[in-house]
């Protein structure tokens, strides 16, 4: 296989990670809303933890993006 083609295929495969992070971020906010609607009075106190979870889940998707960008533009 041509090296250039392999790079682009690799970048495409790395993009799967971005989709997986979408699942993760959706899960964070989904679970938060689910429990926040059960106990709305406790929801405001958990906002910080919500964003910590969001940041952690999002970072992995962003890493997948970095990998694909490196494959396309740098490698």
């Amino acid at each position, binding site marked *: 296989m041509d090296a250039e083609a392999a790079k682009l295929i690799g970048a495409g495969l790395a993009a799967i990670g971005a989709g997986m992070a979408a699942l993760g971020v959706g899960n964070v906010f989904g679970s938060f809303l689910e429990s926040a609607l059960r106990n709305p009075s406790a929801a405001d106190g958990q906002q910080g933890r919500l*964003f910590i979870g969001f*940041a952690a889940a999002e970072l992995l998707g*962003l890493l997948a993006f*970095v990998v694909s960008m490196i494959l396309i533009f740098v490698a």
Partner: protein
Amino acid sequence: MAESGKIDPMHQFAIEPLFGTDHWSIGGFNIAFTNSAAWMLLSAVVLWIFVAGGLKRQLVPGRWQMAVEFFTGFIDKLMLENVGAAGKKYVPYVFSLFMFILLANLLGLLPLGIVGVHPFTFTSHFTVTGVLAIISFSIVLMVGFWKHGLHFFSLFVPHGTPLPMIPVIFPIELVSFLVRPFSLGLRLFVAMTAGHVLLKVLAGFVINSTNAGAGYGVLVGVPSFVLMVGISALEMLVAVIQAYVFALLTSLYINDAEHLH
């Protein structure tokens, strides 16, 4: 672009010297005043004007003072919740950090391209966000070692760890601690880069499809443009969230330094 050229979404991140320049160098490094530096200066000036306008200290605040007090109160509450009373002395730092990043992200999104000025989001460069992250991380290290001395290393051994587990837990916690500045800087840099690349790619779709003919323009260009409007709104949300996350994680790390576990 009659040829409907190749879309170059990365061109917007190119750093160009504005004036001055090939001759200004220190130790072989060019220190020309670049577009990145110009936008940093602009966001610092905007931040200064914003805060200076709110320093009237009226008993019944006006709109401007209310806006400034909202942000200071927001950061004050953040530090109180995450660090406790000891967090009070870090409020100025975290406030400056938050507002600087927020203004950088938002100013970089301004649609000034229509009047010929190209906004530059300097938070889309790892050098910038990396340095901001390293500043936060150095504060954590300095405070940690200053307050707790070598006892600071107990941060890497959580309470109640069984003795045989310590040799395993310690390196894991150490690595997860050392990787913090990278993840902190990387998150902001990539989130901003990804959004701007996405917007440019969609803009390329609009231009190229319209050039290819009216039919393509309606079929591809119009939906792309509608999507661009939506994504722009999302980007504004991301700009705020990323600034908040940066401040939030900084406050958590400071909490670790202040109170260990």
